[in-house]
């Protein structure tokens, strides 16, 4: 409870930090805040135009929909990038803010929240760009979109829980940070983002279901590409896992926080 009170008291700091993080990227550019939407827009356009129009990549089973593969790719990348940004940056957040933690008194839990907040805003802009492009290309979103916040929430919860655990361990054993990078690179290819699960050989395809991100990413894909709700069982399991991670992470964080400044 004390932690929630702390977070509330420092909400201006969190909001101000998220704003700073986003604003530093384009503070001296002419377009300024417009880059926030131009960059994801360019990314989405690249998928839509190059992959679908030029390479004419077709999704098996959805050959009649012209931009299906582009939407598929975008859904997977969006889900994955939120996860990997939050995990990757949370793993480093205490080390990167070592000086601040040594010199200033503030609730340390703000730091991972700033990471999550920044990633979430980026995520939102990517979706905004995607909707713009796909509406323009005659691919309007459907009612299943109502599921999206749920999937995003589970994704974010899982990433924050895992990221906080890794972030705490990384303070004491710096190899954790390196391992996280490697694991994220492998994880990208072990999740059906650029490929369909069906193309995997039968004997290894079953392994996918042990990857929590498989359920998250297919959730995004179901909603955005196949206009279907996410697989409820799988997502519920991942949600439970996320809750477990978050609880463990908070306990670990409480235990470790006083010692962190000693070794930073």
């Amino acid at each position, binding site marked *: 409870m004390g932690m929630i009170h702390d977070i509330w*008291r*420092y909400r*201006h*700091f969190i*909001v*101000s*930090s998220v704003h*700073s993080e986003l*604003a*530093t990227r384009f*503070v*001296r550019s002419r377009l300024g805040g417009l880059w926030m939407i131009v960059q994801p827009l360019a990314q989405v356009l690249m998928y839509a135009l190059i992959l679908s129009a030029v390479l004419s990549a077709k999704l098996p089973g959805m050959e009649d929909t012209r931009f299906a593969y582009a939407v598929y790719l975008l859904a997977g990348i969006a889900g994955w990038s939120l996860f990997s940004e939050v995990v990757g940056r949370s793993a480093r957040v205490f080390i990167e803010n070592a*000086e*601040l*933690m*040594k*010199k*200033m*008194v*503030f609730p340390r839990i703000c730091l991972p929240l700033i990471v999550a907040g920044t990633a979430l805003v980026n995520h939102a802009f990517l979706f905004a760009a995607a909707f713009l492009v796909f509406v323009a290309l005659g691919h309007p979103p459907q009612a299943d979109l109502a599921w999206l916040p749920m999937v995003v929430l589970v994704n974010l919860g899982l990433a924050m829980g895992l990221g906080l655990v890794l972030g705490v*361990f990384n303070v*004491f*054993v710096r190899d954790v940070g390196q391992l996280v990078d490697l694991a994220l690179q492998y994880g990208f290819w072990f999740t059906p983002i650029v490929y369909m699960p069906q193309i995997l050989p039968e004997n290894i395809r079953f392994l996918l279901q042990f990857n929590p991100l498989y359920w998250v990413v297919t959730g995004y894909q179901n909603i955005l590409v196949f206009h279907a709700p996410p697989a409820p069982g799988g997502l519920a399991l991942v949600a439970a896992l996320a809750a477990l991670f978050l609880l463990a992470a908070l306990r*670990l964080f409480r*235990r*470790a926080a*006083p*010692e962190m*400044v*000693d*070794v930073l």
Partner: protein
Amino acid sequence: MNTSILDVMGLEKCFHSYARERHRFMAWIGLGKQGPGAKKVLENISFRIAPGEAVGVIGENGAGKSTLLKLIAGTMRPTRGTIRVDGTVSAILELGMGFNGEFTGRRNAYHAAALLGFSRADAGGALEEICRFSELGGHFDQPVRTYSSGMRMRLAFSVATARRPDILIVDEALSVGDAYFQHKCMQRIRAFREAGTALLFVSHSQHALRMLCSRGLLLEHGRLVMDADAASVIDYYRAATVRKCEINEPGDPGSRLEGLPPVTPERQARTVLSRGTVEELSVDMLFDGDALRSGDWLTIRIRARFSGHYPEPHAGIGVRNALGVVIYEANTYTLGCASGPVAAGRLFTAAFRFRCDLFPDTYELMIGLADTGYDKDAFERSLFFDQAFRIFEVLPGVDTGWTGLYNLRPRAEVHL
């Protein structure tokens, strides 16, 4: 009655090192034992500070000053003991912490205020005050990367002191910036103190410590070795530093620090560095007339007998005013006098004769004896060192048409 604003009791800080980091993780869940290497950086520190008190924390690098301040500020947790703070703590441990050069001073000030836990309304009000106090004018809305280091310091100090804390912790940081703004900072700190803020100040500048602090805490290897008035603690620290600089030969009895009764009632302690071999020491101040007057010729004669043989003893004098400003300090080695071997029991005499053009006031006479000079101003052995050997008074002399510290005796002319 309990009037302290800060109450530190039995404070101890250990940095645990574990043979393997996994032992640390196991200790968290209650498994395994504590690592073998617990490095104690602070041990059994207890003191209280009253509202409005200004306390200097003195000690060598690595004595535990920064750790102590971090513990009081709250960025670190003590291993044992308690710190009871009655109110808010603001620490100026590093000015300009976390400023983002790309953003304006205003934006940075707002962010820093948010980091200090200000609400949006408070931060808004504070911004005007920060803008006014820092006197950055139009620069306040310019990116911080265009600031000079002095301007950054203005902004940082203004932010850190936007709200009056109950305890203000100031590290060296304050020494940057122009003289005008430094003066302004000191005034604000003084105003805070009058309103009840206790000040904890860390500096290596003896002058700044004496100007700002009434009390001193001396830390040595993580222990609080002295807690007295600032002047006494600084003298002790300086004597201890002199002692560390000497080269001790094997078999040579080392010097020691002795506590003697202070020469002024305001002082709580007087520390003299001595080696037992100084058997007899007398210092005479010789001048004509019944009292020393500004402009009189003065001879300071030092006579000593040693119980051992010394190849090249030298004597030194120094004069300090009541604020601790050293007006003059020199010795027969730095002044180029040749010295020679002095056998045990033989009389050693040194004399300094000068025109005492000090402004009428009371002064402290520093006396030192050392053996075998090397380099510019160092000695192999220090034999005796007392920074407040005697208090002497200089009365107004014939020449009264001046003020300051020392009579420069200029030849003044007017041409029309």
